[in-house]
């Protein structure tokens, strides 16, 4: 099941989302091609997290359209399982299952959700744990791992479902500075292998390094976007400039 390179893998059109009276997203549109790495940056409360949570239907939207490999997410009859097989997500707070070991965390969804063979899943899970450089920690519980290690288990857990696209929601925001790097390396490797990634991040250096496109959101709108070189060097919009001057 591989998506063609011609059509956008994810197509977001005029998405509106409100929590009560507060409109978080005020008409957001963008496309993601297969293999692309998209970074979404912007001030707190600008709707970045909400936006990517809408892509895998953790939040529903009020208006607009989100197509993931042609499947409409804004559909009351949405088959969430089909969507979530395609879209992996990693959270700021890791959200591992605390009562399962690292290996079990990675194995659980393929066995329970995809009903795959336990032996095959275990082999794959061990390979993934090795890939995120946590060999030897297979039997550790999340509570015994550092934040950075937990986050890498979380990445492996998502990858075990063989998603076509990965969503990263401020995945380094809760980490100690010295462990941020190890998580970013893992994501960078994924990006280089051709995984389609959408990242919400505050790591500007990282965005500049890995992103194909950088999107800047403010007050529920995409203000500006571009390839990282032009975006970071020649931002046009005053809001972008102001934000970048505060951060960089």
């Amino acid at each position, binding site marked *: 099941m591989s998506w063609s390179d011609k059509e956008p893998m994810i197509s977001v059109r005029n998405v509106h989302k409100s929590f009560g009276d507060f409109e978080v997203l005020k008409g957001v549109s963008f496309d993601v091609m297969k293999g692309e790495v998209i970074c979404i940056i912007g001030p707190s409360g600008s709707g970045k997290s909400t936006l990517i949570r809408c892509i*895998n239907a*953790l939040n529903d939207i009020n208006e607009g359209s989100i197509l993931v490999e042609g499947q409409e997410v804004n559909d009351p009859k949405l088959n*969430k*399982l089909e969507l*979530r*097989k395609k*879209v*992996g*997500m990693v*959270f700021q*707070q890791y*959200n*591992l*299952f*605390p*009562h399962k070991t690292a290996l079990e965390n990675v194995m*659980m*969804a393929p066995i*329970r*959700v*995809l009903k795959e063979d336990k032996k095959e899943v275990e082999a794959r899970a061990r390979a993934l744990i090795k890939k995120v450089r946590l060999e030897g920690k297979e039997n*550790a*519980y*999340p*509570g*015994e*791992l550092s934040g950075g290690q937990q986050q890498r288990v*979380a990445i492996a*857990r*998502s990858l075990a*479902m063989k998603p076509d696209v990965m969503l990263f929601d401020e995945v380094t925001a809760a980490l100690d500075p010295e462990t941020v790097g190890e998580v970013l390396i893992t994501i960078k490797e994924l990006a280089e292998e051709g995984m389609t990634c959408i990242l919400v991040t505050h790591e500007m250096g990282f965005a500049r390094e890995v992103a194909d496109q950088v999107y800047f959101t403010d007050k529920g709108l995409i203000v500006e976007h571009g390839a990282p070189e032009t975006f970071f060097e020649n931002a046009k919009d005053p809001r972008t400039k102001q934000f970048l001057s505060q951060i960089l």
Partner: protein
Amino acid sequence: MDDLYEWFRDFYHTTGINLPFIYDSYDRDRMIDGFLTTVELSVICLFLSVVIGIIGAWLQGSAFTWTRRIVSGYIQLFRNTPPLVQLYFFYFAIGSALPRVETEWGGQAPMLSSFAWAVISLSFFAGAFNVEIFRSGIESVPKSTVEAAESLGFSRLQIYWDVTLPLALRVVLPSLNNNLVNLVKTTTLAYAIAVPEMLYVSAQIWSDNVNVPEMMIFLLIAYFVLVGILVWGMNRWERALKIPGFGS
């Protein structure tokens, strides 16, 4: 063994302390039966009440208003009325309304025995509290952990069984423990509908032997030991479920 029985018979003659359920084979047999009935009643009710708690707490999370209303109606009814009244209600009101069945000797007998009614009544009684206990534990599970499972494609039932319930269980074990201890003690109410459990048998023995103080002391010790075993088992279970780095 016979020496021991004789010793207790002599003990009675020399001290006046009468323990016929040890030395008298007839009383001994009925006491053993009574003890086993209490154990059987307790174990079945413990199991069923926990099952009711788990299912009830699941139904309370239902999207259907009426399902939630029925569950909370059940909890109110069984929590706000005395268990003895419930037992009488089941046995006399519902039991007498049910058709009678023919026995093997051609006589008539109630469809359900008093033991069966005790099981039903006490399980629902303790189950109502267990629903509330499990619900409190479910509420303690972070929403973000549930979301992580959702994003991996778990269904609502899978999330409950694989994530929410195991985590909730660890939180609620102390209060579950309390309720189950109460349940074992409440099985003595079955005396009121002539279930030949330990208290009922003791009453028969003290009527025949006029040794009320001895039987009372025996009952206290017997329940103390019985509940002690349950508490010991629950504590062991609590330790076995402990996860490194989770909880306290």
